[in-house]
């Protein structure tokens, strides 16, 4: 009898038992801090333990006129634009090449391209801080082999090269990862569509635009969003490459880096929270814009 009661009890309450560990932690460690972040953005704080003073919308007001913040926005946006324009076509191109029929050693190439993704951001940053160092770094030496003279580019010291250096590291890290997604997408495109297009006399270029691109369209849009959203959250690469500084002339300062500096170097968690919420708005705005544009191109 007791066993039966236990049995009905477990079948009745099973879903609650299954979700509760997740839900408890979700409320405690995600929703609660999120609520705090909203509140904090209306306070000025001296540090996590220190005094806090209600300032209303002052943090946001100050942020609008904070040229360091807008510099960070410009840097981050430029990086994201570069990443989208270079990474997505490169990943797609590699996937197309790897997907051609008679490729030898496909498994090796796939792993070679993907392997860079297994290296975490911080480790890539350490590696590239040394790769890009002026005299001993592999980058200048390899360029020197092509130029047939010593190359002495100051990758990490030149303000104009700060973000391109970060972009190089980021591309090395992420091109292969994007390729895996495109490869999976390409394999779902119906082979018969290509054959009938060929019979209709479509050349390779026209087949690419009229069969491949529509076929992988969902993944293309997905990648566009993921790369953009990830780009706006850039932090570890420049932070470690430029040794926790903002880089030469603050040209490697990103939004999240400024959030960190304000919150944990200067100790103003309230201001950091305000930066966080403005970042949310920026990301939402850009993502919505992209969705609108991609939807509009579909209707054309």
């Amino acid at each position, binding site marked *: 009898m007791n066993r039966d009661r236990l049995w009905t009890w477990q079948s009745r309450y099973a879903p609650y038992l299954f979700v509760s560990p997740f839900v408890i932690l979700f409320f405690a460690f995600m929703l609660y801090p*999120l609520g705090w972040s909203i509140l904090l953005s209306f306070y000025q704080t001296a540090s996590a333990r220190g005094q806090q003073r209600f300032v209303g919308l002052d943090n946001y007001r100050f942020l609008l006129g904070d040229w360091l913040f807008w510099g960070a926005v410009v840097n981050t946006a430029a990086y994201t634009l570069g990443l989208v324009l270079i990474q997505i076509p490169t990943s797609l191109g590699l996937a197309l090449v790897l997907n051609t029929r008679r490729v030898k050693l496909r498994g090796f190439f796939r792993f070679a391209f993907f392997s860079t993704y297994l290296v975490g951001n911080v480790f890539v940053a350490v*590696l590239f801080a040394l790769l890009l160092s002026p005299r001993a770094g592999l980058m200048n030496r390899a360029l020197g082999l092509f130029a047939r003279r010593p190359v002495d580019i100051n990758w990490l010291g030149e303000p104009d090269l700060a973000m391109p250096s970060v972009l190089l590291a980021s591309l090395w890290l992420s091109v292969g990862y994007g390729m895996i997604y495109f490869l999976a997408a390409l394999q779902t495109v119906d082979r018969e569509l290509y054959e009938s297009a060929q019979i209709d006399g479509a050349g390779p270029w026209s087949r690419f635009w009229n069969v491949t691109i529509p076929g992988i369209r969902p993944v293309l849009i997905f990648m566009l969003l993921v790369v953009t959203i990830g780009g706006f959250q850039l932090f570890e690469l420049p932070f470690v490459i430029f040794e926790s500084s903002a880089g030469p002339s603050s040209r490697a300062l990103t939004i999240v880096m400024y959030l960190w500096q304000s919150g944990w170097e200067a100790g103003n968690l309230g201001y950091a929270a305000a930066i966080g919420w403005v970042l*949310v708005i920026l990301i939402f705005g850009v993502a919505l814009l992209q969705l609108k544009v991609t939807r509009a191109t579909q209707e054309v």
Partner: protein
Amino acid sequence: MAELERPHLLAKKRRKEFVGGVLVHLVLLVAALIALAPFAWMLCATLKREEDLFAYMFLPWGHFERLTLNNFYALFTKEPFGRWLLNSLFLSSTVTVLVVTLSSLAGFALAKYRFWGKRPLMLVMLTTMLLPGQVMLPGASKMMYELGWMNSYWAIVLPGAVSVFGAFLFSQAMQAVPDELLQAGRVDGCSELRLWWEVALPMVRPMVGAFTLLSFLASWNSFLWPQIILHEETKYTLPIGLANMVQLPEYRIEYGILMAGTLLSIIPVVILFFVLQKDFIAGLASGAVKG
């Protein structure tokens, strides 16, 4: 048949295909070289003496007796690298086991049961998933300070055990588990927990593998939050330890030590990747198609 009548056209087509094939492989080789050269450079740097780092681009060809393992020795003696490695292994495996278990349990409930509060819960989950994680940092930091968890692993393990993305991933995958199968299991006297463990989980195996790898990778590489929480050198994880080493001028000169540290930090992830490779590619592919 038509092609046989025009042998010169066939030959032309063959030649074109051959040139195309060579070109394809050339592109792939150059790309593979770019992907792998930094690894090779790093590996070589770990084996070189300080004075050879500048003298040779890769290895001291013809002078292999000059190679050394001193960089690895120095890494473990001059810095608490062994400690960081153990910390990272402990934290990442704990977080991964917890997050895979909790996400798959929650995903199972979301996919296969009706319960009170399910709709609003999913709505709230979806909303938080849209927010970039960094926006939580100020609030979470404040919270951990008030709990007295600054410098404590609790502040890393417990938040790390929640993944909204994971719960949705498993809930999506487990929709495919047939209700009849679960019902049959119940008739045979299977408890609900055993249905999760013996029916649902095995059916989404690729997803388990892919999510395990992604979670481990994320935890192994996480930097910003642990860096806010952990202040004692003996509690550092590998990314924090290495990021601090980069800032020391001595390691800019003896960078073989730094490269040895980086190499050893990558190896555990690569091993896990090889173990889970098949599941990972399958899981990623099925996830990507849906996304």
